[in-house]
């Protein structure tokens, strides 16, 4: 009898092409997602060496990082460097015969939203992309992680990666979440508890009742930020919700292939007694709606808290906190709910899916954003956008005073024209609050879509539960 294995062990074992004596493995890659920013040098490398893409049918490209989110982008992109990158992806997709969703295609969107939406992402697969938020796909029980451009070239040429196995880490969220608490609050709270290096060297499996209770959208939000906790990947074992989500998607298996796949997928769980090298347990009922106050995703506190002082920390974090507070323009002791904001961004691969837009719209219905507030919704894909229009969500956002944009990464990393100016302060549903992330000198507070909507209305960081009480 074989020893009990974790979900990660099982997926890993099924993809080892070759193992060297020192444990270095060649791992087979089932899906390779590609975008315009981290791929041009990789394709150029192939051209220079006369190499081909080994498995173009398993390679999927979509421009997302620096595309404008305003009308007319399918005919012209003003920023020349952005235009060159998008044109390079057009050409590379054509020359190498890979699957492609150009900006003119309604299926275009953020690569990590498009993959699952089109059924490219399936349980038990290995999925890579030249983007750290590839961890998103782990929500399907696929081993998914970001890689650099040299590795993009390696996967294009060989459909494999040279890897050493990570250790196993379990993050269990027990019990039920309280009202107003979402997947974003779970994932931020985990990072708050473990720190941004807490997962370094590990692959995390998220489990427990609160994780099981999440929709697929919520699970993607949780896994998306595994990288912010330092982990190589985040995983959730597939279940009926997963299968239900996948069924009927364009690239999902059909007929007999579906039945065969289901038999395999149902074997994808951690065996009783399997070993985890590290275990973290949080109680679902203890998790509150949270916001970040600093410039690292680990700087997380419940919205009911106050801005900490550098002296509250130890080691190198004292100086880092001092620097963060200065950058963020915050004073220790002030209430987080007193922090005034001027910009709201709802979108990104963390929170740009239909459920996120529904949660924000539920708060905004019949309300207006604070006068002077700049607020935008950037749906994660053209299809999410269309669905939100069909459900009447778009009109709620527009009536409230939000800009209703086209799909892309947008202000999450501000490579396109959607940026903060120095000193501007943004409530953002994205994943990073680093210095300059949303624009030089811009200040970012990470939170859930419902919390972002609440802040747009009041003009300051707000406990969404107060607004929910009002609505009821």
């Amino acid at each position: 009898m074989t020893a009990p294995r974790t979900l990660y062990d099982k997926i890993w074992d099924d993809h080892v092409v070759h193992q060297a004596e020192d444990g270095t493995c060649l791992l087979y890659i089932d899906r390779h997602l590609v975008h315009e920013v981290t791929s041009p040098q990789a394709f150029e490398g192939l051209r220079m060496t006369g190499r081909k893409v080994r498995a173009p049918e398993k390679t999927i490209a979509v421009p997302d990082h620096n595309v404008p989110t305003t009308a007319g982008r399918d005919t012209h992109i003003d920023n020349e460097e952005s235009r060159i990158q998008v044109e390079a992806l057009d050409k590379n997709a054509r020359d190498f015969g890979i699957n492609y969703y150009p900006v003119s295609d309604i299926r275009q969107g953020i690569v990590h939203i498009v993959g699952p939406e089109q059924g490219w992402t399936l349980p038990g697969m290995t999925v890579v992309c030249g983007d750290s938020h590839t961890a998103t796909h782990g929500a399907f029980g696929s081993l998914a992680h970001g890689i650099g451009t040299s590795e993009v070239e390696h996967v294009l040429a060989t459909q494999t990666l040279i890897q050493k196995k990570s250790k196993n880490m379990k993050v269990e969220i027990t019990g039920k979440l309280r009202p107003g608490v979402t997947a974003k609050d779970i994932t931020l709270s985990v990072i708050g508890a473990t720190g941004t290096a807490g997962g370094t060297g590990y692959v995390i499996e998220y489990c427990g009742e609160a994780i099981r209770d999440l929709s697929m959208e919520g699970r993607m939000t949780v896994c998306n930020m595994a990288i912010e906790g330092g982990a190589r990947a985040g995983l959730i074992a597939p279940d009926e919700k997963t299968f239900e989500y996948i069924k009927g998607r364009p690239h999902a298996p059909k007929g007999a292939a579906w039945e065969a796949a289901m038999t395999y997928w149902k074997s994808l769980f951690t065996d009783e007694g399997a070993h985890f090298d590290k275990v973290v347990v949080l109680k679902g009922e203890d998790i509150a709606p949270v916001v970040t106050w600093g410039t690292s995703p680990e700087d997380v506190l419940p919205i009911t808290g106050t801005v900490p002082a550098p002296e509250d920390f130890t080691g190198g974090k004292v100086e880092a906190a001092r620097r963060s507070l200065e950058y963020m323009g915050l004073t220790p002791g002030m209430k987080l709910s007193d922090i005034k904001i001027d910009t709201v961004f709802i979108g990104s691969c963390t929170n740009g899916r239909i459920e996120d837009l529904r949660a924000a719209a539920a708060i905004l219905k019949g309300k207006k954003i604070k006068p002077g507030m700049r607020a935008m919704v950037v749906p994660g894909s053209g299809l999410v956008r269309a669905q939100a229009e069909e459900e009447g969500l778009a009109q709620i956002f527009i009536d409230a005073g939000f800009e209703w944009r086209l799909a892309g990464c947008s202000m999450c990393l501000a490579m396109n024209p959607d940026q903060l100016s120095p000193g501007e302060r943004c409530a953002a549903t994205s994943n990073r609050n680093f210095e300059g992330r949303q624009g030089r000198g811009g200040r970012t507070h990470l939170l859930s879509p419902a919390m972002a909507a609440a802040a747009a209305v009041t003009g300051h960081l707000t406990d969404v539960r107060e607004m929910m009480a009002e609505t009821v």
Partner: protein
Amino acid sequence: MDKFTTLTGVAAPMPLVNIDTDMIIPKQFLKTIQRSGLGKNLFDEMRYTQDGAEIADFVLNQPAYRKAEIIVAGDNFGCGSSREHAPWALLDFGIRCVISTSFADIFFNNCFKNGILPIVMPQEVVEVLMEDAKKGENARMTVDLEAQTVTTSDGQSFGFEVDPFRKHCLLNGLDDIGLTLEKVASIDTFEAKANLLRPWV
């Protein structure tokens, strides 16, 4: 990729923890379709004011560290985005080695692909190296990959661990893709087997 054997050079102290890849190379420089030329924008927003003037007290702007080849950094260096532009920018500036207590996973991998050696050392050793780095341009540190040692300007020597395969590639300047393509028969065999076991993939 250039070989990495031994390196003797000035080390710049950067004790800040969680130096992320957005700091190392901000997103506006990711629009290039080349690997070269990023060194002038390394740490751009820490190094220059909004109008492009040098910020005098930033370490790499100080006369002693303008030609640094090593960085001694705080915990969790290179966290955040997977952008390989970060090691490209370091390399283009002239940095061949970064020493810290810990590195983010993707950045760590990316370094080895570009002839940069990231070294993990315990906290107490990083503190000694940090103090040595603060001595400036006359204090040159030596990194010997073959012997797996870092030696301070006053002769204190510390051993470090490195993955044998990665060491081999760095010492010889080897291209990963070329090595993997030598195993193409194994990939073919795996693919044929996987097509039978999981035909829906």
